[in-house]
């Protein structure tokens, strides 16, 4: 498969680009930020996502979706990133749906209709500390009657306060560090004993600290098999990481475009500052890094879609490389804007803040670089 978008994917890209620019651009982002919205995104826009078919990209055709793949999900995510469109797309329609795809049909019949219609929002309860360490998950799920009882705390549950369902990874046996013993649950966000404390993040998105105090769930809330949740978790992480790499790529590309435009217009010493070699070389270097990042993101998505056994390695390469390239893009962007880069009025700072939050989502560049070393056996 050649490493570029095919005609159908290009068409999807065009329609996603038009849609985000038309319905979910930076002005839309500012509107929801400035009214201090408790969700941090528009439910009406989420319905429109569903009408466009976007929420069904990873849902099979038999189950009412488009039956497409990670490349197509990434195409939409890149446009989300480029426009800073606030939406629950990544957690719900990409990582969340992929978790459901890894489990049984009954749970899909229960949750997919709401996702396909844009009425439902999922949130992911994975992290337990400030840094993403899924192998260290220790939150307990103990047998209770016909089901399980969940106790513990999760954090960085993005849009957790708006979600109707949480995908929760907990430990039914074994101890932190072991692959076996993890179990993934679909938990009603309004269950008894579940407390959510939503906080606003640097990028204006909302994330929740979620406390589970004897939260009782049925056995049929288990996604996949009890104690074998690592398989579900890895599939969800691969989808979420490749997806967030694609969104990050969009943030970096958007920031670069804004910056290149800015230095083409700004004059000092009676000269367009973009004609200075000091800026040209740095911008060209940035372009090179972004191009390389783009290749890694597409490669990882294609490998996921092919079911390649080496996909996880490439996903980590993509998350690390897109993270580094976009961090460079937003840093250079603010610096090259000069004083106005520090103002809220100019958009470049919003890209910097979005990148910072996305970097932490499902592991930053250091985390994935370390993972690649481990996968190489050193």
């Amino acid at each position, binding site marked *: 498969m*050649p490493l570029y978008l095919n005609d159908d994917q290009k068409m999807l890209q065009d329609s996603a680009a038009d849609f985000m620019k038309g319905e979910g651009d930076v002005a839309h982002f500012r509107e929801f930020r400035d009214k201090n919205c408790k969700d941090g995104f528009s439910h009406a826009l989420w319905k429109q996502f569903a009408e466009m078919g976007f929420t069904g990209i990873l849902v099979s055709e038999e189950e009412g979706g488009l039956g497409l793949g990670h490349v197509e999900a990434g195409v939409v995510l890149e446009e989300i990133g480029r426009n800073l469109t606030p939406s629950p797309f990544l957690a719900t329609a990409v990582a969340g749906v992929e978790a459901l795809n890894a489990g049984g049909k009954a749970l899909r019949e229960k949750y997919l209709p709401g996702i396909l219609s844009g009425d439902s929002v999922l949130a992911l309860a994975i992290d337990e500390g400030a840094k993403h360490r899924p192998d260290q998950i220790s939150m307990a799920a103990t047998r209770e009657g016909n089901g399980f009882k969940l106790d513990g705390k999760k954090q960085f549950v993005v849009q957790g306060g708006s979600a109707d369902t949480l995908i929760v990874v907990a430990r039914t046996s074994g101890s932190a560090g072991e692959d076996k013993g993890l179990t993934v649950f679909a938990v009603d966000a309004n269950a008894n004993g579940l407390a959510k404390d939503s906080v606003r993040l640097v990028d204006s998105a909302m994330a929740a600290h979620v406390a589970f105090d004897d939260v009782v769930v049925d056995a049929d809330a288990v996604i996949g098999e009890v104690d074998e949740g690592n398989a579900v978790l890895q599939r969800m992480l691969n989808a979420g990481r490749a997806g967030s790499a694609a969104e990050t790529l969009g943030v970096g590309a958007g920031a670069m475009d804004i910056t290149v435009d800015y230095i083409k217009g700004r004059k000092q010493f009676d000269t*367009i500052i973009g004609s200075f070699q000091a800026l040209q*070389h740095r911008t060209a270097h940035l372009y090179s890094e972004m191009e*390389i990042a783009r290749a890694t993101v597409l490669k990882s998505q294609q490998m996921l879609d092919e079911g390649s056994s080496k996909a996880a390695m490439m996903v980590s*390469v993509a998350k690390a*490389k897109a993270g580094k390239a976009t961090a460079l893009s937003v840093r250079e962007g603010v610096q090259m804007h000069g004083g106005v880069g520090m103002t809220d009025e100019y958009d470049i700072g919003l890209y910097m803040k979005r990148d910072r939050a996305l970097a932490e989502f499902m592991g930053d560049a250091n985390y*994935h670089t370390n993972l690649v070393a481990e996968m190489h056996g*050193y």
Partner: protein
Amino acid sequence: MSDLESFREETVAWLEANCPPEMREPMVDENDICWGGKNPTFNPGQKEWMDKMAAKGWTVPDWPKEYGGGGLSRAETKVLLQEMGRLKIRSPLSSFGIWMLGPALLHFGTEEQKLHFLPPIARGEVRWCQGYSEPGSGSDLASLQTSAEDKGDHYLINGQKIWTSYADKADWIFCLTRTDKTSKHKGISFMLFDMTNKGVETKPIVLISGQSAFCETFFADVEVPKSYGEGVSSVVGEVNRGWDVAKYLLGHERSMISGDGSSGATSLGSKFADQFGRDEMGRLDDPMLRAQMADMDIDVLAFRAMAERFGDTFKANLCHPAQPNMMKYAGTEINKRRHELIMSAGGSEVLEWESDASNGGLTARGWLRTKANSIEGGTSEVMLNVVSKQILRLPNA
């Protein structure tokens, strides 16, 4: 089974049946490269392998069959190279004829020129070198002064080239000459001539690596015929329009040099962990070095994906025409960093310059060789200039 999958099966079977065992040993140094030519030096297995591959057209798999190529599609070529890589089979033939002159002739040559010059390249019978740079014309290549005076049935060449790779071993040269002094870019011609002509002299240049891959090449009243037969002009493209050919070729050269950025099949970290030892977690037992190795793994794997994407988009005419400049910049900078890291990991042992243990200073010489990567074929600074002007459309000062 798809056509491509059956092609893969047949290819693997043929490669395994025909590749001499010596050609499946890892390459140690530049002496293991098979260059062909009229005065070749072959290591065991090299000639057999070159001839077998040439007979199938697979020394130049994607050239048309009538010019000695294999006539393979992009996808088939990719499969062949993938399988050769997987089976650790060496390239049967390397040459500037394949990398540079071939693409120029395929694009700008007449049918007669193609039929005359390409098949001997594909069979490894003629070794070519490239005459571009001059002492006063480095980054500003179009200022070149080597003159070709029109003498009716021939040109008279006078001047000097520098950094001519393997000029002392080459049979023929493709050379940029000045045929009109009144126009900088539209006074250059792309000429082909025999290095055994009277008046051609070469002098190897000793480099910081102690090796001499490059030469100074002198032309004193060298007579170059205007034609080598009907339709076989010694000039490729039109007279005075050689800059078009040169620019096209620089794109190829830059893409080719950039390939170093994705070479080195195994991860550096796993290689050095075996050498340094591992901690109780199985990690390379030097945390700073481990971190740098892991960063390098990310960049090498990322650049490999970039190289694949570049190749695919280039063939499909989907990439920006200036993209080879970006590839050259990124690939060479990664390769330089990679060799810095190899030196750092090797410590005092890789400082040895002549010992048997160091294989004659192989690591150190290789490290120094990479410093030319970001100079030859256009410096990194020139690449960044081109990207910022042609791709990002930033204004001139």
